[in-house]
Structure formats: structure tokens, C-alpha cells
């Protein structure tokens, strides 16, 4: 593919609002997972909750969109001058030439969950203040972002579970390549809700303590919430040395099971191979892999096997879900932002909480934040339904150095 320029990006997780807070926490090995006190949830698990989402207020013109997911989206958009960067792009390209593609798994489902508690006892109806289209529907968050940014181009939500906000990069890149748009706002927003907390608990996939991806004693996931946004466009003629480019997108399906990955990570491997082929590079040219690494026994085993089969034992890798949790539909976006920060700030984030890396998976799994500054990074996102997406990002100066 033709490389695309990440001209601006931002991320908000339980580690904090914006790039600086997240980068500092990752470099200092500070995690954000804590025992779950969300809403009325009575599960023994940890979550990565973003502070202050409840206090966020939407403007009156967009009040119909009011729900936790869109409040979190608004918090995310307000960081790192992202809104100003999009406004500048809109002035340059025109609002109708900028697409919006946001990944979300559950959108504003919390709003429906709460409304079901307040059904009319006589006729079972939902309360009048429940607004389906602007909260629960998966498109709500893309619509909200498009309106907030005053954009007028094509838009859709990608909702493919935990690969959602990795796949948005593919949708945007293809639409830019066909010439239908000049730039796109992509990203991921997913927020805490009862469906995912009780759902993953029903599958016995939630850990009672902060998740420990790739640890031999890993015991499941910690659910998090997050918002990540990117402005992507064709690269200008002159790029700063530390400019981050999207070099490849690889997608595949497992054709295996709805909630378990292919045991050898076959679909995962295909996605990584496609991303490498699109980027036109070999596995040895990847300096760091941000693993999907959810912390369940099966997921990490499948992904680990796929990485070992393709990269061998020497490519440095880690999962950052020990720090921010599994942010589900936002995970691809969050980890793309972490990959971009790793490239720009010259670090490889450690896998938090992990003590003893599973000896069955002899990976170069990072337990401390060190190693050389990476030039090219691969980020994995896999999800229910057997959906896989791998992204490759690189620094602009790594392209020039390429033979």
C-alpha cells in the first residue's frame, strides 16, 4: 500500500488523558487497572476506568448523543489539540472530503441496559428519555465525532469486536486510495458496560487481579475503556524524521470458532503476513510487536505460536493490556497510538504485571521498558467471530534508510 501519514493523534485511557500522560505512565511502568467499582457491578475483577467520564457534559446541540461512550469520545477529542488539527484539515481539504471511521464494539449499549431497569411496569415500555439512534446504535459514536468535528464526508462505524479500531485504518486507507476522500478521522471508542463485564465473566475469561498477559499463571482479561483518534492523510513531500506512517494493514478471518481463536493462531499469522506484504518488508524488519495479548490462556497461546512461527524468538514484543486493560473495540486504536508513541518517543513498552513469561512461548517478551528505539512496529488486534487485523507503522526516517 501507499504509506499514509498519521498527521495527528491522541489517546485517552485509564492511564490518563492525552499522549503525554499515557507515554509517561508506560515508560515509568505505571498501570491503571484497579478493582471494579463501576456502576452496580458485583464482580470480582479489575477494570481500566477513565476518570471523570461521568462529569463530562455534551453541548446542548448534541445532547441527544449523551451516553458514557460519547462522553468518553468527547474527552478523547479534546486532548492534544486534535480538534484544531481536524479543523485545519477541513479548511485545507473541505469537510466533505474527510471521512470518519470509528471502531466500537458496544457503543452506547449501557444506555439500553439502564433503560431496561426503568421499563414501565404496566406496559413494559422503555422510558421516553432513552434515545436509541444517538446512543445505543453502533453508528452513534461515528455520527457524534463527525458532528463534533463538523465534517461532512463518508462515515461508518466498524464493529468487529476487538479488531474494530484496527480495521478502521484499512477502511480509511482504501477510501483515500480510490480518491473518494483526501483524509480521514479514524479511531476507537469503547466504554465500560454491563454486557461486556458480565459477558466475559460468563465465559470465565475475566481475571480477579490485574491481567498478566503471557505470564505462565495468566488468568484472564481486565476490561478497560478508552478513546483513541487519528487524522490520516497522504504524506506531504517533506516529512519530519519522527513522523509516523501507516505502512501496512493485514486482515483475515479464523473460520474456526465464535469466541476461541484458532489454536495455532493461523488466522493471526495470515493477518500479520498480509500486513508485512502490504508494507513490503520482511519479519526481520519489525523492531517491536505490540501483541494483542489479552491475558487469557487460549488467546495468548494462539497468538504466541503465530508470532513464533513467523518472527522466531528474537523480535521484541509485549502486550500493553496489563497497563490499560482490554479496551475491546478501542484496543486497536489505543495500541496504534501506543505504537506511534513508541516510534516517536523511542521506547518499547514493558508488559506490566507479568512476572514469569510462559515457558511454552519463548518470545522476546519485554518485562522492562528498554531496548533500542524502534523504527517499525507491528500491532495485533483479534476478536470474537475470528476477526484478525495487524497494522504496521514506521518512522519516516526508517523509509529513507530502507534500501
Amino acid at each position, binding site marked *: 500500500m501507499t504509506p499514509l501519514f498519521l498527521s495527528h493523534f491522541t489517546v485517552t485511557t485509564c492511564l490518563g488523558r492525552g499522549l503525554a500522560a499515557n507515554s509517561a505512565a508506560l515508560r515509568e511502568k505505571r498501570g491503571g487497572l484497579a478493582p471494579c467499582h463501576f456502576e452496580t457491578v*458485583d464482580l470480582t475483577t479489575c477494570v481500566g476506568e477513565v476518570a471523570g467520564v461521568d462529569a463530562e457534559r455534551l453541548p446542548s446541540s448534541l445532547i441527544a448523543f449523551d451516553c458514557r461512550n460519547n462522553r468518553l469520545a468527547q474527552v478523547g477529542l479534546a486532548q492534544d489539540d486534535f480538534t484544531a488539527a481536524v479543523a485545519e484539515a477541513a479548511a485545507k481539504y473541505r469537510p*466533505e472530503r474527510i471521512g470518519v471511521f470509528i471502531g466500537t*464494539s458496544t457503543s452506547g449499549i449501557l444506555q*439500553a*441496559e439502564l433503560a*431496561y*431497569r426503568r*421499563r414501565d411496569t404496566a406496559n*413494559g*415500555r*422503555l422510558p421516553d428519555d*432513552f434515545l*436509541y*439512534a444517538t446512543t*445505543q*446504535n*453502533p*453508528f452513534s459514536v461515528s*455520527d457524534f465525532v463527525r458532528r463534533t468535528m463538523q465534517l461532512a*464526508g*463518508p*462515515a*461508518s*462505524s*466498524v*464493529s*468487529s*469486536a476487538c479488531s474494530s479500531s484496527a*480495521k478502521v485504518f*484499512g*477502511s480509511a486507507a*482504501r*477510501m483515500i*486510495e*480510490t*480518491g*473518494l476522500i483526501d483524509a480521514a478521522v479514524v479511531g476507537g471508542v469503547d466504554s465500560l458496560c*454491563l*454486557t461486556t463485564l*458480565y*459477558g*466475559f465473566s*460468563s*465465559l470465565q475469561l475475566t481475571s480477579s487481579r490485574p491481567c498478566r498477559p503471557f505470564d505462565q499463571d495468566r488468568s484472564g482479561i481486565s476490561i478497560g475503556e478508552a478513546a483513541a483518534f487519528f487524522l490520516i492523510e497522504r504524506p506531504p513531500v517533506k516529512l519530519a524524521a519522527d513522523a509516523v506512517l501507516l505502512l501496512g494493514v493485514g*486482515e*483475515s*478471518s*479464523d*473460520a*474456526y470458532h*465464535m*469466541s476461541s481463536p484458532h489454536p495455532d493462531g*493461523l488466522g493471526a499469522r*495470515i493477518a500479520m503476513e*498480509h500486513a508485512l506484504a502490504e508494507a513490503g518488508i520482511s519479519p526481520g524488519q519489525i523492531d517491536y510487536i505490540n501483541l494483542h495479548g489479552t491475558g487469557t490462556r487460549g488467546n495468548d497461546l494462539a497468538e504466541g505460536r503465530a508470532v513464533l512461527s513467523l518472527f522466531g524468538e528474537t523480535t521484541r514484543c509485549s502486550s500493553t493490556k496489563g497497563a490499560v486493560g482490554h479496551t475491546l473495540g478501542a484496543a486497536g486504536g489505543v495500541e496504534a497510538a501506543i505504537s506511534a508513541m513508541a516510534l516517536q518517543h523511542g521506547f518499547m513498552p514493558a508488559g506490566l504485571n507479568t512476572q514469569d513469561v510462559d515457558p511454552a512461548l519463548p518470545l522476546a517478551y519485554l518485562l522492562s521498558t528498554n531496548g533500542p528505539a524502534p523504527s517499525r512496529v507491528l500491532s495485533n488486534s483479534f*476478536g*470474537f*467471530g*475470528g*476477526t484478525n487485523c495487524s497494522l504496521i507503522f514506521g518512522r519516516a526516517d526508517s523509509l529513507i534508510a530502507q534500501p
Partner: protein
Amino acid sequence: MMSGLSVYVDGIGLLGAGLPNWTIGQAVLAGTDTYVPRPIELPPAATLPPAERRRVGRVVKLALAVGYEAAAAAGQDPACLTTVFSSSGADGDNCHEICQVLATNDRQISPTRFHNSVHNAPAGYWSIATGAMQPSTSLCAFDGSFGAGLLEAACQVIVARKPVLVVAYDTGYPPPLHDSRPIAEAFGTALLLAPERTTFSLGRIHMELTAEASSNLADPELESLRNGSPAGRALPLLALLARRQAHRQILDYLEQLRIEVTLSPCH
């Protein structure tokens, strides 16, 4: 500056009230047969392994049925196809059951209900049923979901120079969510889009973005099908294809942004 998107339509799948497949639907939409509204009949998802087959709801049966029909009509092996699935709300029955349980003190939702709750469940079951390991994406653009799926699929065809199957489907919600999102009738359609003309090609469609108002169907009953579900918004395009008519229609997409589609029939 914007040249639009051009792709070939090689196969069509259709399943809606009174439109049990493309053969019958084509005759109705071409005006040669009279539209007779009949309740939709969803075939069992026969190609799924028995364990999965027992677990799927209406939306998966609908998506699989139209997907297979379009692939077969285009002479394509479903296992080899890149897919785009698009729907406003995926499995509404399942969503209702989960919300109901979560509103009780018990809150113990079943693992199957949970994994069926993801918007991409139809895509996941399609992949299991067909063995397709190709890329697949699952989209939502509320009432514009068909338009979003069509644009995504066309972009994939043009960029990858490979055929892509786009599947759009909606089954709506039971009460009380039905009152908040009144999707009247289950409706599904699928198009096999190809980069080059083949012996199966029905026509070439050219798409441009426009602010023009979306086209209606002259028949009031078909028009109510179009309006009754997001996937039904495909009907003006399906009517063009049924008539094999060199003509244009405007498809619903977003507020102030619609898709002008012009058909050049192949025969």
C-alpha cells in the same frame, strides 16, 4: 478531482417479505410480476456445524442465505471471498434478551448470548460455515448501513482488484426496543462485486457521492419495504438491476450525503 467508484455486479442475493430470492424478486422489481407481500421465511443455516447451527438467531440465517445466493449466482466459491457485512443492529432478539437479564438481580447472561451479541456475529458464522479465511469487515451506519457497506465493498474491489461480497441485513428488535428502533420487516440482500467484467456480470455500477434526495419506488408496498429497514434502502439499486436499465438512482446514506448509482447493463 473525485472520479467516483465503478465496479461490476456479478451476483445478487435477496430475501424479504414477498421477495424470497432474486429470481422472484427480479420479476417483481422489473414489474413483470405483481408484488404479493408474504411473511419472510428464513432457511436454516444448513452449512454450519450442528453445534453452531443451534446457536444462531434470525439475523445469521438471513445473512447467510443472501450471501450464499449472491456468491452462487456469480459462480464464486464463498471460501475465497473477501466480505463486507453491514447492518444497523445485528441480532436484536439477542440484544433484548441480554438487556432483560442484566436488568434483573441475577445478571447471569449465557456465554452463547454474549458471543452472539457482537455486531460481527453474522460475519463470524459466515466464516465458520464457508471456511473463508479472507478479510471481512462489519459495518454500521444506522439507516445508511447499506450505502456504507456498498462504498466499503466497492473500495475493496478497486484497491485489491478482487471480487468482494457485500451482505446487508436487518431483523430489527422485539418490544420494547422495537418502539425505539421500529424496523418493520426483516430484509436482506447481497451483491457480489467484481473489478472486471465476467460472463456473470449483470452490469457495471458507477457510484458518486451527492446531496440529492434519495430515490423512491413507485409501488407503495415496495416503497414501504425500502423505508422499513436499512437493508431495504438497497431496493432502488436492485430495481435498476432487475430492469437491466441504463439509468441512475439515489441511494440513502447519511444526512446530506447520498450515493448516486448509475447502471450500465452488460446485456
